């Protein structure tokens, strides 16, 4: 039982992610999270403003059930399966983060500098949170998929489009991490 409570190594997590993908196809559907964002827009009435969202969101209930499961899974893992909330980061990473103003990196899952209530209710902090979301939402739908649809399914299919998209993910991620983050904090 103890190994479940420990952090899971990559060679356990990767195969289980592939299994999750397999199960969605086995049950006759697809594996992709970001299309749910379109469904949420449609539910919120975005069809009144943009014709694309005039689809019947009820046909995507299966995927909403999946993301509702994600929320429950996050709750279960946090509540009962993660007694130690620290992340064993590379000491070099902790050092780099300290240099740009992140204290106690890895003491918890998320940095207070971005996710604490103080950050949330500051103008800068709020803009960072909402800006990160807008970029992810806009980019994933522009590319037609996120880490699941392109990263896992697309790369597994050896789809050229997904190799381009994932190369884009890394170009954007490297620019943010190396060139922009140091000036934001």
């Amino acid at each position, binding site marked *: 039982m103890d190994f479940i409570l420990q952090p899971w190594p990559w060679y356990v997590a990767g195969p289980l992610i*592939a299994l999750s993908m397999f199960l969605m196809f086995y049950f006759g559907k697809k594996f992709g999270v970001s299309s749910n964002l379109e469904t949420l827009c449609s539910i919120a009435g975005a069809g009144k*403003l943009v014709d694309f969202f005039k689809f019947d969101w009820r046909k995507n209930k299966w995927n909403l059930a999946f993301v509702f499961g994600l929320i429950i899974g996050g*709750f*279960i893992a946090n509540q009962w399966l993660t007694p130690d909330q620290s992340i064993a980061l590379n000491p070099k990473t902790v050092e780099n983060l300290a240099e740009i103003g992140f204290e106690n990196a890895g003491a918890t899952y998320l940095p207070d500098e*971005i*996710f604490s209530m103080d950050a949330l209710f500051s103008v800068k902090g709020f803009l960072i949170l909402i800006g990160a979301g807008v970029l992810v939402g806009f980019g994933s739908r522009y590319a037609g998929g996120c880490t699941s649809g392109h990263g896992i399914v697309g790369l597994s299919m050896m789809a050229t489009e997904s190799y381009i*998209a994932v190369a884009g*993910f890394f170009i954007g*991620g490297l620019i943010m991490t190396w060139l922009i983050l140091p000036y934001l904090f």
Partner: protein
Amino acid sequence: MKYLKFLFVGVFFGIVLSKAEVISWYRIYEMFKLQSFHMYGVIGSAVVIGMVIMYLFKKEKLKTYTGELILVDPKKKGFARNMFGGIIFGLGWALGGACPGPMFILVGKGVTAILVVLFGATLGTFLYHAVKHKLPH
């Protein structure tokens, strides 16, 4: 009730990403700093096994639970959409430390601030479809 199986897969996937620390902002930062193999191992091993699964779908060795063939939709063609969309996505992924799956998982973890990120992602989705006719694909 027919949706229950998808809910269960979601719960499972949510626990896997939580326990593998894929939902940690720090793990994403560390990945882009190229200072840890962890995330590359997670994605790489998922893709290698995914390739075998896709091969078995194609060879019709694996079918749906009702015995139907599994046909995976092809990705949308176009260099610009995938490259530019990918870059925009990557900027947000590294800033917020969360792609769409982990955003929902972090809601379950009880992280209030992620609701703002999730709202932003929904807004970004809306904005894309509002301006997409002006973008190169």
